[in-house]
């Protein structure tokens, strides 16, 4: 075989790809980022946030400061201080609440373990990714006020998962206290 035939064959492949990319739109895999944005899949995750019910990010917080996520977090980026007093939570039951809840997102590695270990469905993964900041220290330390996001926001980013969570929470609430609810008590 002629020397150089292999190279020419390779060049033909390159040429086909080059010209083909003008005619077949599905060959273009790139997205012109700041102008166009890919839709993130439902399971996409980057940093955790705290879910609150009702409209009050203070009182509606599901977190009861049990500190399980703080203990299980592999890079130890969560810092929680438990409150001294109890406040009624969104279901009216007196609970502790986090007096301080900080997540250092410069340390967080987005592993989702806090979400998995949380028994109260209080911490979930967010999808926001444009998080660049001008300062290194305080700006990347998310306080409780930055972290609290409403349940409807949770529904908007993880619709299927949030529905499941709502169903399990409603089932747990119905099972726990059928008597004090003003509505007719659920049987079983």
């Amino acid at each position, binding site marked *: 075989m002629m020397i150089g035939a292999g190279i020419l064959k390779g060049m033909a492949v390159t040429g086909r790809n080059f010209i083909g990319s003008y005619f077949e739109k599905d060959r273009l895999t790139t997205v012109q980022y700041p102008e166009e944005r890919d839709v993130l899949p439902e399971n*996409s995750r980057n940093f955790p946030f705290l879910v609150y019910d009702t409209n009050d990010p203070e009182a509606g917080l599901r977190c009861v400061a049990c500190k399980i996520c703080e203990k299980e977090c592999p890079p130890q980026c969560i810092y929680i201080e438990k409150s001294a007093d109890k406040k009624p939570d969104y279901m009216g039951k007196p609970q502790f609440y986090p007096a301080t809840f900080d997540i250092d997102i410069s340390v967080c590695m987005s592993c989702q373990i806090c979400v998995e270990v949380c028994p109260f469905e209080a911490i979930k993964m967010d999808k926001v990714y444009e998080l660049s900041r001008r300062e290194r220290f305080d700006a990347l330390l998310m306080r409780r006020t930055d972290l609290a996001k409403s349940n409807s926001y949770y529904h908007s980013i993880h619709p299927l998962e949030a529905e499941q969570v709502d169903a399990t929470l409603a089932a747990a609430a119905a099972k726990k206290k059928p008597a004090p609810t003003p509505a007719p008590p659920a049987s079983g």
Partner: protein
Amino acid sequence: MSLSTRAQHSAVEAPPGMPSRLDGELLEVSMGPQHPSTHGVFRMNVALEGEVVRRLKPVFGYLHRNHEKIGENTSYLGSMPYTDRLDYICSMSNNWGYALSVEKLAGIEVPERAEYLRVILAELTRLVNHASLLGFLLSDMGAWGTPLMYAFRERENILDLFESLSGSRMMCDYMRFGGCRCDLPPGWMERARKVVDGFPHFLDEFEQLITGNEILIARTQEVGKLSAELAISAGITGPGLRASGVNYDLRKVDGYGFYPRFKFRVPLGEHGDCYDRLMMRVLELRETLGILRQAMDDLPAGPIMNPKVKIRAFKPPVGEAYGRIEAPKGELGFYLISDGSGNPYRYRVRPPSLINLTVLEDMCLGHTVADVMVILGSIDIVMGEVDR
């Protein structure tokens, strides 16, 4: 060099008592750690005679981050996301290796569907790894961009699958002791099938692009030969070993997961040179596609997680276990000693990249500097795994 500078150069007198030429002297060159072809921060102290390598000393540890010590100080579950960061191209198979050894340690059963999913994801990871390796290796040889972009186009499709399943493209953190974290999202399997069906087109195209290429043949054949004896005695595993003609694939030898249920062949090389190692990846990709099709056809319905496994406060019984898998780069093993507490007493990783790197000097001696890059590329290392 122009004539005038050459004349000036030769006019420089050697100091008295010094030989005027460097006869028999070796030139020490430090390649890396910031060399674009070293696949991360890896340095080679090379002693050259002219252009020929006479001595080569690998220097690594620049990316050391206490992986094993962190593993001993965090819970068993807490080590799982760290394993993603070992070989950051193949996080799914790293997850599997670690999950396998913890399951051995604690005697955990894995549901059938989860085992099938693990096979599918590990084989998809093999596609990612081998495709990117082909691109990187061609890049090392000077085919800048084009093959790498083609390979990354395919890789991106698979990473999209990983993202929609696990939430992250590269740091998947998907497997758990006793199963997998979440079930497939709707429509995932159809998309995965489309990716797998489209992959042979990429492979054909890629083979056309490179296999007959005279430059590639000249630069890889008879370069960096590794004999079967040396490969075995140095503990080389993975495609590098099989390229030397040794039939050793843990998927066949150990038969972990559900691999004995699938029909596939183990491709073997003959010469153990860079060309064989390169082509080994192409052949393995084709076999991998076969495994993927079988696993996708047979995927059963059912639970994805063993319900008996606790997520919080997981404490395996006292004992030790070594779990190993055929990662895309070779044998990836995790050795765990448990003292019954919540974190392992000893956590040791057997990284294929590090151990395959040990024969680098033997493969490079007698070749030129330019060949060193090709040989290093054909070993397929990731520094995250070498340094840990």
